[in-house]
């Protein structure tokens, strides 16, 4: 479907989708924890905007509740909590060592192509004007996963996990006009609990191992080396 044939709000959603993908790439590129958290908040804000747009395009106003939840949780609460954690653990300027950043980025670009390839048959099933975003949301999920793999620090891994959730949520909102309210609330609650649990875990990991580097957990293996 040619983009010029869509209405302006729909074009807006597609643009936001592209920007969300960009924010995923930015997450992958950040080396400092505080800017990482800010980028994560930015991704949340973009998803919030996209949800509001979708609510008006589809006329399903219950999406506004999801949008409000997103705004509260992903733009303010979770990033706020993470910031607090970072301050308390005093790891704000911690520079993360990841493999070669350029290679990881190129791999992520490859992931976008791959998800396009995977999403091609799915797209045929949908009649919505915004179905092209399935590729984007899948790519966001995969890149989130890549981030979990390629980072060492637990905080960054949690942000990767959250960004995967962002991708899923975005897919639900944009390509199928939202999940049932119950499911959505449940997920939101889950994420909330997860953040709190992670926060508790961070302190434990740190007190036990003396670092948030999850590679240190390798030493917990049963096998004697």
């Amino acid at each position, binding site marked *: 479907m040619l*983009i010029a044939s869509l209405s302006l709000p729909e074009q807006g959603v597609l643009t936001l989708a592209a920007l969300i993908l960009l924010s995923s790439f930015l997450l992958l590129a950040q080396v400092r924890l505080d800017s990482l958290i800010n980028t994560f908040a930015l991704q949340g804000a973009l998803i919030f905007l996209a949800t509001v747009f979708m609510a008006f395009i589809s006329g399903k106003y219950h999406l506004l509740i999801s949008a409000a939840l997103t705004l509260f949780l992903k733009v303010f609460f979770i990033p706020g909590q993470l910031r607090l954690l970072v301050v308390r653990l005093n790891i704000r300027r911690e520079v993360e060592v990841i493999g070669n950043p350029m290679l990881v*980025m190129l791999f992520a*670009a490859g992931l976008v192509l791959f998800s396009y390839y995977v999403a091609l048959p799915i797209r045929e099933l949908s009649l919505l004007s915004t179905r092209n975003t399935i590729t984007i949301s899948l790519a966001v999920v995969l890149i989130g996963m890549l981030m979990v793999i390629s980072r060492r620090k637990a905080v960054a891994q949690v942000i990767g996990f959250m960004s995967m959730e962002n991708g899923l949520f975005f897919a639900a909102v944009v390509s199928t006009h939202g999940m049932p309210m119950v499911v959505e609330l449940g997920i939101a609650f889950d994420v909330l609990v997860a953040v709190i649990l992670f926060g508790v875990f961070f302190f434990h990991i740190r007190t036990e191992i003396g670092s948030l580097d999850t590679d240190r957990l390798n030493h917990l293996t049963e096998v004697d080396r």
Partner: protein
Amino acid sequence: MSGLLWAIIKTLCVILLAPLMAGWVKWLKCRLQNRRGAPPWQPYRDLLRLSRKNVVIAESASWIFRMAPYIVFSVTCLAVSTVPVVTVQLPVAALADVIALVGFLALGRFFLALAGMDVGTAFGGMGSSREVTISSLAEPALLMAFFTLAMNVSSTNLSTVIGELGRRDLTLYPSLIFAAMGLVLVAIAETGRIPIDNPSTHLELTMIHEAMILEYSGRHLLLMEWASMLKLTLFSLLIVNLIVPWGVALTLAPADLAFAALIVTGKLMLWGMMLAVSETIQAKMRLFRAPQYLGLAFILSMLGMMSHIVLEVR
């Protein structure tokens, strides 16, 4: 034939007004930093002064050193002549498309870098080495941004691209947004502005462009300085006319042309303002952060192309 005449007049205008653009950015920057600043026409005075000065050439220099300023300047002039400024109807635009434009700039840079190495001082080699490193990363990002535009309108001719974009109704193209972002980042790197290079630095270890032309003087330096101002104007024109294509005249009617000239001047002044602000609030990067910056530009352009294929085509 009148088209050719117009093209020559346009090129001359851009060449003559280029120092004003550089002076404008410099003046704004000074004002933003609470300094009084030299007036925007100061570069003209500098150029005039340089033209009167004697030329001093190092003993070890060869003919490359003497030829390079002329080549760099004339190549940049030729590049300018292919960029639509106020109208898309000029025949010279067909001379070269964006790929050739990038090629021209690369040719100029090739000789600039050679000139840096000609004298055999450490500074020149350092400047050349840094310049080719940065440009070899910037050039693909630039081409990629242009490719995104080119695929969107299926043409690499600048006048076709600008005309086609100007004719369209307002449509949000994700790919164009990315291409624009990539283009801006690369343009800043290619014109040697903060955060990649500092045009006003004279500290040896931070120089790139200035290190290469350290040995130049007199009219040779004039040409080098003018060429770099011209390059700034060239990229500014590309940015304002590609990202905000409205206002470029689609015909050759005098009223249209005058109006377009006004609009383009306004756009350029605005872009100069943005450049000045960004240079004021940013610091120069370490040299080895530059690849990351350019990598970001490359990824942006590549995302633009992907979003064109994923989101826009079908």
